[in-house]
């Protein structure tokens, strides 16, 4: 990882699409839950809808962290770090930044890269 946060940002959350039936699963396992297929194709899910958010207070008194549960339709829900202000019911962009899943207001994800 470089010092430039923007360099380690990849759009979308990695998920698996079953090569047999097309079912998208996150996080994906070993066999397709729908058809039992063994082979997955790698896909990225880049949009979702915020179902819930919470502010987590570290026990050591560090800065609070906002997490969001984001629904990705049939693929299920993803727990993401919130970037910027996001609200329940809002559609958000998902990305991987420095190894963690982030949810940001649509349009804000790419431009705010490296902003903090």
């Amino acid at each position, binding site marked *: 990882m470089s010092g430039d946060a923007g360099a380690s940002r990849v759009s979308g959350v990695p998920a698996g699409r079953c090569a047999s039936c097309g079912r998208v699963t996150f*996080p994906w396992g070993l066999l397709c839950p729908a058809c039992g297929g063994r082979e997955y194709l790698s896909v990225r899910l880049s949009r979702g809808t915020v179902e819930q958010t*919470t502010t*987590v207070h570290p026990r050591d008194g560090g800065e609070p*962290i906002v997490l969001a549960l984001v629904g990705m339709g049939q693929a299920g829900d993803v*727990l993401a770090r919130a970037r910027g202000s996001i609200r329940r019911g809002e559609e958000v962009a998902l990305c991987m930044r420095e190894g*963690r899943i982030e949810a940001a207001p649509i349009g804000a994800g790419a431009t705010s890269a490296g902003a903090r």
Partner: protein
Amino acid sequence: MAGGGRVAGIYSRHGSRAAERVSSSHALRPLTEPLLIGAAETPYLRRPSEELRTDGLLADAFLEALEAAGVRRSEVDGLAVSSFTLAPDTVIDLAWKLGVRARWIMQSPLGGASGLDMLQHAIRAIESGDASTVVILSGDRFSKQAFAKLVSEYNRVTHELLDPLPFLGPPSVFSMLTQRYMDMHGLTRADFAQIPIAQRGWAAGNPNAAYRDPLTLDQYLSAPMVADPLCIYDCVPVTSGADAIVLSTHTRPGGGSGVRVRALAALHNPDNQAGDGLKTGLAEISPGLWQSAGRGPAEMDVISVYDDFPVMVLVQMVDLGLIGPDQVRPFLNEQLPAGRPVNTAGGMLSAGQSGASGGLHGIVECVRQLQGRAGARQVQGARHAVVAGYGMVLYRFGACANAAVMEAVA
């Protein structure tokens, strides 16, 4: 619910199983009835001393349980354990260090469901003659570092997807489930407060509980938040401690009276983590469990449900039919304040969560209640109890669930 009957996939002492085995062949002897005859729990410690180790805590619980059961170490021929911090040792190291010659042995990794998991298997071992006296143990000694490692490396998905957020442990996951449940049932934090408040009341009667002082609604509502809507009183205090139960073919003079397991059932990974997390495997196994037990929810004098977070108490109560889905509010605001016996040792919310011990804590309490050995918190005339286990958050919620219906042997 009189009579009862055998349900496929569910352990039952009161189906026709035992009789069937006798009548179908003269060569088969009737299945032995295993009885729980002793239970023990060490104090749950917030700040364990430096020299205290997991195996030492397990040894303490082992000895106390043998004494409670009136059993000599040399009679023990089966051993089971669940622990997150025993590694690199396993159950066989423990057998060696305790001096147990084991004809049957097992280890369960199932956390909050490990106690009933081990009991499920131990019952069959005794019924089938593989062992005659089994001690089931669980416990953990946590340093700050050991607990952080457990949270971070709970499973591969946690390590890869949750730890980097960082998610800072289970409360963030359960805050989402709690919010969803509050919305579904129109509940407030003041409603939820009734669970930790009622359990703290029971903890006053448990000398081994980590927290025994009364908890007020004002204290709860002004407490520091952990992950909204969860405050510190909604999250189990991490403690170090151990639990043990003894299962055998018969009671001993000077030991505890017998407790029969009328039925036991489990359902793990019921939905591949695709559901909303507000229904456990218990919902599916519940009808068969009660039918197999020949008893109904209304007959339960004591209830132990896994309380890693208050929302899961409600989910299990509903899944097991102990309250109707539309009775959540009266359960919280009327039944609990009136003393309905749920988690009568204070539960993990007050007694503490000593890692895998959480999986035995509820069983230990129900055995003690049914033996009339629960001290200041004894539920008078307790004859029937139900225990539920839950746990193992794979990603968004726990995947394991099991339950047992127990009865004091007259």
